[in-house]
């Protein structure tokens, strides 16, 4: 129990550090560029944060099961085109939102089946389907779908809470709250963590590992669908490449939030903080007066820094625990291998 308590402490500090970092950014921005807190800018940041977070929550589930989904961006591109087709007819938001979620569900579910039925590593499987999705889109659509009606862009332009806050924020809030409760209390989420921690042990305890993995993908799909809907409705023209490359930012948000890429750990609250930090970078640099050309570099550096900090804290912990017989360097490595960054069973009742 002592061990699990210290692990729990560690989980707290990962998010604690992120929170400090986030507050630091916000304070610095307050001092350096008060304009940053203009209503317009805050709402732009919040909108980006919302759709990044919605997709990142889905990705988080997938990564918890020790898979990864590099097809997320291309699925979002497909969703954008599908809802543009539906929205072009003048259909209202609920109709094309459901179409988008359905598209996401089907494509992501196929990815999950592909990975589990054929036992192919997720990264190459989703890499292959990415090429299919990206390749298929321009065959169906010539460049872009344009002149979309006002009913299509209603979400971005008219749907404001109290007249200012974009409705996407409400989407993100509801989804985040729902998933936080879900991850905290459902038996299903415990199984997800179990699968990510140790597939064989999970099988032995009677969990259908493949089914859990497919379900993780199937849940992520509709979330990509919502994300794609928010992205696509921001303008009257929808192109075939709207989500391409966005998967990297989504994965970055999840990893920055403290979810270990080797699976079995990670909390929604971490993902929320990770997504928020990433959505601040580009606007913050703009307002400070640094060229936004550097934002990719800063994003890469922040992700790297975050995983390095997490890794170092794990390494030093392991060194304390293990008595190393001979090869000074070898044992902690061996331990790191079996218990990668933050593999703590995160929910110990």
């Amino acid at each position, binding site marked *: 129990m002592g061990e699990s308590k210290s692990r729990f402490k560690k989980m707290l500090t990962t998010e604690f550090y992120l929170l400090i970092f986030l507050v630091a950014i916000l304070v610095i921005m307050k001092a350096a560029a008060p304009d940053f807190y203009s209503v317009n800018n805050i709402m732009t940041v919040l909108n980006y944060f919302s759709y990044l977070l919605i997709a990142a929550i889905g990705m988080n589930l997938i990564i918890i099961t020790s898979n990864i989904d590099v097809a997320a961006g291309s699925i979002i591109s497909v969703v954008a085109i599908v809802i543009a087709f539906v929205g072009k007819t003048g259909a209202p938001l609920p109709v094309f939102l459901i179409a988008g979620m359905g598209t996401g569900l089907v494509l992501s579910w196929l990815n999950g089946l592909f990975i589990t039925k054929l036992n192919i590593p997720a990264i190459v499987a989703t890499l292959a389907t990415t090429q299919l999705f*990206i390749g298929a889109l321009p065959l169906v659509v010539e460049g872009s779908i344009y002149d979309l009606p006002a009913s299509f862009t209603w979400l971005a332009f008219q749907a404001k809470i109290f007249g200012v806050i974009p409705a996407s924020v409400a989407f993100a809030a509801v989804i985040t709250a729902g998933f936080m409760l879900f991850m905290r209390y459902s038996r299903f989420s415990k199984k997800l963590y179990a699968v990510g921690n140790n597939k064989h042990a999970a099988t032995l305890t009677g969990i259908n590992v493949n089914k859990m993995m497919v379900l993780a993908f199937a849940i992520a799909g509709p979330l990509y669908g919502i994300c794609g809907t928010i992205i696509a409705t921001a303008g009257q023209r929808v192109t075939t490449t709207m989500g391409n490359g966005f998967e990297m930012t989504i994965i970055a948000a999840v990893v920055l939030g403290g979810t270990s890429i080797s699976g079995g750990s990670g909390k929604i609250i971490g993902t929320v903080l990770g997504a928020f930090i990433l959505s601040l970078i580009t606007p913050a640099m703009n307002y400070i007066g640094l060229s936004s*050309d*550097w934002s*990719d*570099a800063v994003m890469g550096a922040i992700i790297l820094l975050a*995983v390095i900090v997490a890794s170092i804290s794990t390494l030093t912990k392991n060194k304390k625990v293990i008595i190393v017989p001979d*090869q000074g360097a070898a044992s902690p490595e061996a331990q790191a291998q079996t218990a990668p960054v933050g593999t703590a069973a995160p929910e110990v009742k």
Partner: protein
Amino acid sequence: MESNMETLAKPRKRSGLNFNIALLVILVALILIIGIRNPTFLTYNYMMSVVVKNIMEIGLMALPMTLIVITAGIDLSVGSIMIFSAIAGGMVAQSMGDGMGILVTMAVGIICGLANGLIIVKLKISPLITTLATFFLFRGIAKGMTQGDSVYSYDFTTAVGNMEFGGFPLVLIVFIVAAVVFTLLLSKTAFGRSLYALGLNENATRYSGIKADRTLIAIYVISGVICALAAYFYLGRFSSVKFDVANSMNLKVVTVIVLGGTSILGGVGDMKGTIIAIFIIAVLNSGLTVMNIPIDVQTIIQGTVLIISLIVYSILGERAKKRRILDVSKAGGPGSGSIEGGAAQTPA
């Protein structure tokens, strides 16, 4: 253990050869089909200046990547390293001359590779995450340095990028030399064998006395060096580059390697498969262009090729793995103690 000993006694790698022969058959069949549909494809000039030249940077980078994937690692930052080193070299060459440009390109390649290696090995961060982050970082630095503008080729890169000997491009000669070196490195040296060992079981490999850290760092540095090498040709060939031209190059390299029969899970694979796969992708790319098939269909076809090869390899995977383990233990001559023997010779 018993089953291992049994496989050791069996005749050598029948299936391993078959994979490569199957790939070779596919390659020849593709060339013939496309050649019959459009005879220009088969002309020497087209083969050299379009089919081969367009794939060479990816081909070069696939060689060290094969080593990395065999150790169960991956390097998603290859395209970014290439562009970063090309851009850094190009910018320095504008103000300080070609010599400095050449040096800076190579230095950037080495430093990027070393950074990847050190983070992965010393800080125990998974190669996937490390190189995903450095993919952003290196490309981002290139973007920041150029403010998003193009960087132009200088005399040296223009020369090497377009140099030909009777229609035989210099880059192909470099590729052939590199391919031979990497094939020998992987199949004939203790270093090569230690890579398989690392991919199959890293902990066991460490405990058997192989200097795993050094070996792993070395292959990421080699990857950086080859990326810098590719950067000279790439910059020369296109005469100007922007930070985002190589965004999907990492995925193309991974496609080549998976098609070549190297398992993304590590421990399985060989260089010959990768080399044949490079030419299959090259023929597919330019062949579809010559047949006037739109670029989007080509993306689909490449994805389909990757999916089919994944399915085939996943079905045959288990058997292949056993045989490749046999290869590893056979490669260095007799005696199953070869792994311990190899440790002493592992180059720094």
